[in-house]
């Protein structure tokens, strides 16, 4: 998947963080990199939207206090160091000197305080979770920002990159309504690239920031994010070399094999470690028979996850074992030691569970009929639903498919609760508090909020464990809590976890060092360079 050279390049870029000049022997300055962003973002207000098509552009412009390395640990960025108090309730960030915004203003602790307390905390969709415990930011001097927390929040350090918590220029936001700030379409940050123009329907152009605080960087003169609505045309544009880079599986899976065979192109699946995509089936437990644990487990047994990976995802993924992705194995949080549904006699077990649950097969061989709300975000979900129809039929469940567009689907599944089974995919994000908890705790049963607990699962033990995990500072103890959560949840199967989605990035071989960390395309192309 990953070419040896790009792995070496990425490692080199990391180890040489402090001396980018050493890399310049091989890296060539100049050139324009063209990347695909799909679909075109509605705006570039990264501080109030986490739509997936915004950060590939805005993380070039906005930076965060920290970055992340391949071990998924925070590394210095705009903050050159930090001290965490033993009780976890005070974090002192020491900022880089001589950093300025693209408008010339100096970046200081006042910008940190304003960005987080007055913009992100008010507007960012994830702020009520990430910054829940944060009560104040003290700024004793321009290069020191002290975060005061009510309770320890170990996950907060995992959400301070330019993707999660962009640092904004206070002068541009002060005394304005941050929800309708002109920077929504013309972002101004401290990053390696400056906003150039946005020709709607076509492209966003970013220009090199000549006074970037990391000397010698970036290598590229220009970045162009192009919007091409048709997936086949995106493939063609990669093949002709018009486009250098396409992340988040922007082409049809069916095209990947052909593109990989193309001598000018290469692929990688690195750079998605902090996204951790998981595909699932949500079951409405207010709709019998999904109130019965045995029925939910039977469905979990009925699905051949490897089949989905091999045939629907063209090998890009792996079977999921539970609510947390295996990428969390690095921090010890993930465990595969749970009830396993991938056993050889799984169909027989499923049939027995359904028989015992009082759901005998009728005359047509079916036990009951139900409907799946097909995920509207692309063709592969339709294929998956078609496979599920067959898999369910094997255990006597007659599944119908319903297709609606995004707006109608979200409303039906998360507001009207007028559904039996839905097939979303979610991001585990960088920490279970941010990306896992929301689907299982009782307080996350919130009508009208999308991708939260809509299965009505409510278990006081799970609630208590998630609450404990959120404030536990000791990594092994924390890992233990989440391992226990996984065991209980898989046993109860409020949801059916299908596959861990593996995305693929396709890039031109002339482009080097475009993937340098676990945030991948959600981090800056400051070290990327093009042979010319």
């Amino acid at each position, binding site marked *: 998947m990953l070419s040896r050279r790009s792995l070496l390049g990425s490692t080199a870029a990391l180890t040489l963080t402090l001396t980018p000049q050493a890399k310049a022997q091989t890296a060539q300055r100049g050139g*324009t990199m*063209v990347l695909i962003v799909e*679909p075109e973002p*509605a*705006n570039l*207000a990264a501080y109030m*939207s*986490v*739509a*997936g098509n915004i950060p590939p552009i805005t993380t070039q412009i906005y930076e965060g206090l920290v970055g992340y390395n391949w071990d998924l640990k925070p590394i210095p960025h705009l903050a050159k160091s930090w001290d965490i108090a033993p009780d976890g309730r005070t974090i002192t960030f020491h900022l880089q000197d001589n950093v300025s915004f693209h408008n010339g203003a100096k970046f200081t602790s006042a910008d940190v305080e304003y960005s987080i307390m007055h913009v992100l905390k008010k*507007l960012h*969709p*994830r702020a*009520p*979770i990430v910054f829940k415990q944060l009560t104040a930011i003290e700024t004793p001097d321009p290069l020191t920002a002290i975060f005061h927390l009510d309770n320890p929040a170990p996950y907060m350090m995992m959400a301070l990159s330019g993707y999660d918590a962009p640092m904004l220029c206070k002068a541009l936001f002060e005394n304005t309504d941050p*929800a*309708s700030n002109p920077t929504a*379409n013309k972002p101004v940050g401290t990053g390696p690239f400056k906003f150039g123009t946005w*020709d*709607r*329907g*076509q*492209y966003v*152009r970013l220009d090199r920031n000549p006074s970037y605080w990391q000397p010698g960087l970036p290598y590229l003169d*220009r970045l*162009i994010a*192009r*919007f*091409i*609505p*048709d997936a*086949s*045309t995106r493939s*063609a*544009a990669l*093949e*002709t070399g*018009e486009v250098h880079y396409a992340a988040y599986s922007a082409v049809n899976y069916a095209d990947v094999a052909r593109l990989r065979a193309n001598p000018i192109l290469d692929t990688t699946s690195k750079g998605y470690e902090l996204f951790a995509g998981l595909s699932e089936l949500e079951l409405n437990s207010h709709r019998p028979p999904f109130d019965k644990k045995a029925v939910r487990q039977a469905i979990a047994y009925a699905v051949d996850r490897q089949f989905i990976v091999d045939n629907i995802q063209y090998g890009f993924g792996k079977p999921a074992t539970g609510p947390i992705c295996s990428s969390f194995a690095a921090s010890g949080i993930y465990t595969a030691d749970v009830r396993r549904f991938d056993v050889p006699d799984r169909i027989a077990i499923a049939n027995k569970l359904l028989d015992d649950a009082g759901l005998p097969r009728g005359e047509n061989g079916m036990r009951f009929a139900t409907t799946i709300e097909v995920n509207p975000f692309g063709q592969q979900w339709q294929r998956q639903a078609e496979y599920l129809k067959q898999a369910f039929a094997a255990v006597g469940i007659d599944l119908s498919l319903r297709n*609606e*567009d*995004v*707006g*109608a689907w*979200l*409303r*039906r599944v*998360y*507001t009207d609760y007028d559904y039996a089974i839905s097939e979303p995919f*979610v991001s585990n*994000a960088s920490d279970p508090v*941010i*990306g896992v908890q*929301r689907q299982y705790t009782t307080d996350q049963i*919130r*009508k*009208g*909020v*999308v*991708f*939260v607990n809509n299965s009505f699962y409510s278990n006081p033990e799970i609630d208590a464990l998630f609450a404990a995990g959120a404030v536990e500072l000791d990594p092994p103890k924390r890992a233990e809590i989440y391992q226990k959560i996984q065991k209980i949840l898989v046993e109860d199967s409020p949801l059916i976890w299908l596959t861990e989605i593996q995305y693929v990035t396709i890039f031109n071989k002339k482009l080097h060092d475009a993937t340098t960390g676990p945030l991948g395309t959600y981090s800056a192309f400051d070290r990327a360079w093009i042979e010319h």
Partner: protein
Amino acid sequence: MRRLRHAVRRLLLAVPVLIGVIILNFGLLHLAPGDAASVMAGEGGAATPEYTDMLRHKFGLDQSLPIQFWHYITTTLQFDLGYSFRNDESVLSLILERLGPTLLLMGTAFLLAAGIGTLLGLLAGARRNSVGDGVISALALLASATPTFWLGLMLIIVFSIHLGWLPTSGYETIGAFNEGAAYVFDVGRHLLLPAVSLACFYVALYVRVMRAAVIEQTRQDYVITARAKGQTERGILFGHVFRNAALPIVTMAGVQAGNLIGGSVIVEAVFGWPGIGTLAFSALQGRDLNLLLGIFLVSAVVVMIVNLLVDLVYSVLDPRIES
């Protein structure tokens, strides 16, 4: 003078039609389930109810439907198309940005289609049942049966990937900063494939309409009269038959005016052309009702203007129609 009065009367009649269009659009769009706030929150992956409520309040979606409608009507009648919260830009400027590329693509495709289609239809109709007629009719049938997206992709594979003559997609070479003649040439290179894909379907339509009209006209008495006068077949065809056969072509052109502004979503999507069609599609997906209403209204206005022009052209082509 009479023609002018006719035009003014038609213009006045257009006002109630437009108001009807506004009311109908508003009603229809509010029947669609889901709203802009829930779609935007959904894109976020994890949003709180406070966030969604904040969006609804900002978009004015927390007000009752009659109040929203009253607000929409009053601003529209002041020629204010409103604000697209999703794009954080005024609806008018979003539409105007796309109007140029849309008109360029549709205009080129229209001229190509009408020119070639009318000519081929005229030839086929004049030599009915000849080999030439057979070939033209067969090609027209094939062209009208070819899916536009497939033709577009095939053109890309042949001319962009294999031959490398033309770019796959887009409106211009970004970052090339072309100016003057180089810019025009660059846009032309990008325009060629989408215009041909789009024209191909319409060529077929024009051929079929023109051929039928020519065949009908050649059976008319005036053709026999002209022939009896000793006029050449060529003179009859271009001097008499063409003008009369052109009427249905003009009618069809008028009907297609709607497409002119709405564009072809498919061709725009395949070639990444920044037209109004894809703008409308993404607005629909995002439940950006202000933007959608604006696009519908502008489309309605253009269709009405073109139909007015068609009426005027009719009376020029055939003076009897005016009365």
